[in-house]
């Protein structure tokens, strides 16, 4: 691939983040790798407890006590962020990489005007004076499509709707032209018509600036519409990784397949939703073998005993099909017999 020569904007290798509770260490993220290039959107999809949000907070180094990044590297355009001191990293945060969150209702400080909250970021990183920073804040509000930006800048968060507030969050995040934008469930709390506006806006701004986007979501629909590459997380690990078309055309991991068939669709009729039985294992009782084994319809002794690696399939893949990587024994040489997931109807 030609992109091999390009240094990724973000490269995460072997990331491990744990929470140290009185009951012991909880490994919320356990060895996660991925990378994003400029102008590219990487989607990280997973259900609650998958570790996707902890991963994004780790990249921003926003993990609070008792959580701690215990292993791995996080490189921004080749610089290891975990080696920076707190002071050094504060210069990057909000400047070269920034983040928007799920809850626009609570993510803005209620006692400051939205204009001053945007201007603050500008003043910190661009060293502008108060007046210039305010002007920049107004420009940003205009950029994110807020009508009457001069007036809105003087408003307090509670005076704006949820969609408007998320636009303000985007304005804050993009005010310093970051190389990387992390969007953690940016539209989950919003109505669909507003969600469409916000996703459109992010895409538009990405086209303008060429930033890399890390889109964290539980919604495969959002992934399908926004992402170029996808990482599927389950119980703190990456279980599948592929470009978006490949993933939706031929999901490999039984979890990914189950997830896709469990979504009720508004565009087609489904007789019955596929159910993934049981629940995500708790970090306290993490299986030593494949973490999905106890919910997997195809699990064998091998799966329960040995922990699979994330790898390109070497077995049980149809000729001529491009695939990503998956963490499943079925696609390894150790799997005896045919692929049991074959013919599993995905919705397409």
């Amino acid at each position, binding site marked *: 691939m030609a992109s091999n020569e390009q240094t990724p904007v973000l490269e995460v290798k072997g990331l491990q983040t744990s929470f140290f509770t009185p009951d012991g260490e909880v490994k919320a993220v356990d060895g996660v790798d991925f990378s994003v290039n400029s102008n590219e959107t990487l989607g990280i999809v997973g259900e609650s407890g998958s570790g996707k949000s902890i991963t994004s907070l780790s990249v921003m180094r926003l993990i609070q006590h008792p959580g701690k990044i215990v292993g791995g590297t996080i490189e921004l355009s080749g610089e290891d962020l975990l080696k920076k001191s707190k002071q050094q990293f*504060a210069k990057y945060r909000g*400047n070269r990489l920034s983040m928007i969150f799920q809850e626009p209702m609570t993510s803005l*400080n209620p006692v400051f005007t939205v204009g001053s909250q945007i201007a603050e970021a500008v003043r910190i990183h661009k060293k502008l004076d108060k007046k210039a920073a305010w002007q920049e804040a107004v420009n940003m509000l205009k950029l994110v499509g807020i009508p009457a930006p001069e007036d809105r800048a003087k408003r307090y968060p509670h005076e704006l709707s949820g969609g408007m507030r998320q636009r303000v969050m985007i304005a804050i995040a993009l005010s310093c032209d970051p190389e990387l934008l992390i969007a953690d469930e940016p539209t989950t709390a919003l109505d669909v018509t507003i969600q469409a506006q916000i996703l459109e806006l992010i895409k538009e701004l990405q086209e303008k600036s060429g930033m890399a986007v890390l889109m964290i979501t539980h919604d495969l629909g959002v992934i399908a519409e926004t992402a170029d590459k996808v990482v599927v997380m389950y119980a703190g690990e990456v279980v599948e990784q592929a470009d978006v078309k490949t993933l939706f055309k031929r999901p490999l991991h039984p979890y990914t397949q189950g997830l896709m068939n469990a979504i009720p669709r508004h565009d087609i009729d489904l007789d019955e939703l596929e159910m993934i039985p049981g629940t995500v294992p708790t970090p306290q009782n993490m299986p030593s073998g494949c973490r999905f084994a106890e919910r997997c319809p195809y699990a064998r002794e091998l799966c329960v005993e040995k922990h699979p690696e994330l790898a390109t399939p070497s077995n049980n893949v149809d000729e001529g099909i491009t695939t990503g990587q998956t963490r499943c024994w079925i696609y390894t040489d150790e799997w005896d017999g045919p692929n049991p997931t074959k013919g599993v109807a995905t919705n397409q």
Partner: protein
Amino acid sequence: MHIFILRRLLQLIPVLFGVTLVAFLIIQLVPGDVAQVMAGEAASEAQLEQMRENLGLNDPLVVQYGRFLGDLIMFDLGESVRTGQPVMDIIAPRFIITVELALWGMVVAVSVGLFFGILSATYRNTIRDYGTMTLAVVGLSMPNFWLGLLLIYWFSIQLGVLPTSGWGTWQQVIMPAITMGTAGAAVIARMTRSSMLEVIDQDYVRTARAKGVSERFVVYKHAFRNALIPVVTVIGLQFGYFLSGAVLTENVFAINGLGRLVVDAISQRDFPVVQGAVIVLAITFVFVNFLVDIAYRVLNKRIDLN
């Protein structure tokens, strides 16, 4: 905002009415005869009756209350039955001293309380936190007068650096202010701590960090401004307590404030003075609460809308 202030002011009217009524009635209920006090033990029944008539004590209560209110509006609180001086003239200088004392106490309580509250919250569950909170419990449990006596013992008797009593010079202010402020500081520190801990986990604090705001500004600007909202209420209440609780401190340090005046007036059965002092204190209390309400509004943008 203007509507809010106006509405609050209107609400003050019945409160003030109630306050004056209670102050008026309590004095009526207290055993003892004003006329007797004024006329002296040796007065005859006829003299007493004459005295009552002059004082209007024979009129129906309602009439007396009406007269009392009318006078009050003209800032006339009557005359002392002991000295015949207008009560207003007796109270005013004493009241100023007490307010000064309470304000200095507030300076101590607020600065020390906020400082330790924030310190405790930012070093949550560390030795600094535990140390501060232990101190707070001690400060809260220590009676005022006892702390005052300890301070006198150390600074005046042992070290000889501060005067034991009086009011006016800065040396005379230090120990009473500490005495007054300590318990308040403890209350404010505890409130600040819990309020900060609540705020520090909020999403918008995370947003501030994500913007690259330094940790110091995260704490003092983003978190503190929000944490202050409930603390302001506590500070306002403390000021009220300080005014009414000044009597102990005033006695320990022999300060001629309103508290001492009231104690003296009670023992001398100088009811108009007691009544006047109670009313002045109560009105101040109500007014301070009014200011706290407005401060709360100013700080808390969210409720401004309704």
